[in-house]
């Protein structure tokens, strides 16, 4: 079945049947390429004062310069080095932690399962940005701490998602057949249940990449993420907010966030259309 999906996915992309997916993938690929090769680009150093301060876009500085005379284009592109890895780390950590706890809760149930789900309920009862702010503030500023805060906010979503999937898949006959073949519980869970749970996780994770980029920028914007000289998008927008009439300072990082979020949303939507039979 997975093979059939893979086949459909690739043919759909190559036929251009899923234009938003192709577009989203292209945008993401471009950002990843930028992130990996940015040191080789002929750009001004992101932390150096390379021109006069608060200059509007020009041939020398396409996106203008900020309050300290740094090149906004260079800082925007360098920002990918922070935002994209942090999104990857946060989403992966949330999927692994939430997935493992959700799988345990769904498969074994009992007291531990109930305890995990109550913890999920409690965590989800807080508005995510508020909880992330509280955790980040208590850990102190810095991107690493912001990442930890975001994992704390994000894992319960995956715990719920995976638990619901496990509850459904474990009732299927092939699971009983595996038990009848003499397989132990861990083997049944990891080999016969979890591989059939990944579709909604994949769709959600793709969408969440964009959301994590957004939340990371939000935390940096209010001073709880990246610290000042770092060319992080949220922090750059915070700089720009102080110079309201010099719109180009916030424009570069703003467009960057927009592009990444839309890119991941397009891919996530497309994946859901392709993988989830209910949306057809």
């Amino acid at each position, binding site marked *: 079945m997975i093979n059939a999906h893979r086949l459909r996915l690739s043919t759909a992309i190559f036929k251009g049947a899923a234009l938003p997916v192709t577009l989203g993938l292209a945008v993401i690929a471009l950002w990843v390429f930028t992130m990996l090769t940015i040191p080789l680009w002929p750009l001004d150093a992101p932390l150096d004062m390379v021109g006069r301060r608060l200059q509007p876009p020009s041939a020398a500085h396409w996106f203008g310069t900020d309050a300290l005379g740094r090149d906004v284009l260079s800082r925007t592109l360098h920002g990918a080095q922070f935002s994209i890895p942090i999104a990857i780390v946060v989403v992966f950590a949330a999927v692994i932690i939430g997935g493992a706890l959700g799988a345990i809760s769904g498969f074994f149930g009992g007291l531990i399962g109930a305890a995990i789900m109550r913890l999920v309920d409690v965590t989800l009862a807080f508005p995510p940005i508020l909880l992330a702010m509280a955790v980040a503030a208590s850990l102190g500023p810095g991107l690493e701490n912001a990442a930890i805060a975001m994992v704390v906010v994000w894992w319960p979503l995956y715990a719920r998602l995976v638990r619901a999937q496990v509850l459904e898949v474990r009732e299927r006959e092939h699971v*009983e*057949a595996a038990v009848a073949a*003499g*397989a132990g519980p861990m083997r049944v869970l990891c*080999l016969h249940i979890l*591989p*059939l749970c990944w579709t909604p996780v994949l769709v959600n994770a793709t969408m969440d990449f964009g959301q994590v980029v957004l939340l990371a920028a939000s935390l940096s914007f209010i001073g709880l993420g990246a610290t000042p000289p770092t060319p992080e998008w949220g922090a750059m927008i915070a700089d720009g907010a102080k110079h309201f009439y010099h719109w180009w300072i916030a424009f570069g990082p703003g467009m960057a966030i927009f592009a990444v979020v839309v890119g991941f949303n397009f891919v996530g939507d497309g994946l859901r259309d392709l993988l989830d039979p209910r949306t057809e």
Partner: protein
Amino acid sequence: MAQPALLEVRDLRVSFRTRSGEIEAVSGIDLDISDGEVLGIVGESGSGKSVALKAIMGLLPPQAQVTGSIRFRGRQLLGAPEHEMRALRGGKIAMIFQDPLTAFNPVMTIGDQIAEMLMLHDRSLSRARLRARTVELLELVSIPEAAARIDSYPYQFSGGMRQRVMIAMAVANNPDLLLADEPTTALDVTVQAQILDVLRALQQKLKISLALVTHDLGVVAGTADRVSVMYSGRIVEKAGVDDLFADPRHPYTRGLIASVPRLDTQSAQLTSIEGAPPPPSSRPPGCSFAPRCPLAAQLCRTERPALRGAAKSLAACHFAEDTPAQIEPVI
């Protein structure tokens, strides 16, 4: 007897606790299977036959309460430690499921799934050895080009092929006992006979005992040595397969036989059994079949008949000794 019987089930009861009270799916059945024998267990949906099979395998969910005794080669399986059951499952006792599509993991190749079965019971097998044995097993059930098909996924096989693979998997570890839960029900009629042939040939070749659960008397007629007929959680008749068809003693068995087309009799009309079995939550105090039985008398509604000898069978009917001539026109 030098060796204890292969399988000896005594007074097996299975009940499920539900919100609307306790529901007894199996109400005290005895089953015996000796080496190399095929036991057919016949009954309609809800008669408890599949539940009984799962109880033997220890596959019932924790909310099922199982009492009685299940002895396999003299060893008590009820309440046996989980690691012991795990070694038995797929090892000495293997199961064939009804729907070969849903009983396979859709994201694993069939080769991997057979190899898993082998590996679970013999960790020392090398990859090459596993592969060779898997191909050998697929050839045993006449899968053409077995070596090439080993890396296919279940959905790439037809229903009949899948059921062959399932049989190959079940016999992978040379089990002593095979439990088949409606192995042909999900298949096309034309394929059913082939699968039964494969099953029977393997059963004789490998000298495996087989418990064949089905609602299809035709399946039993061509395959089983002895038959137990189940109705509403109980065994209502036990007999050798020829005796059962020649001289059924329980009115339910007669009804079943009369509802199946036969080539060897002239009867033009097929008769159905009127009504439906009582729900397990509200079984009558007397014979469960009484509400549908053409012979039912006052005695049947108050007193539950026990299994007792009548002619060559055991039947749970107050009128088991009455000759068929008296009864045939009534049904």
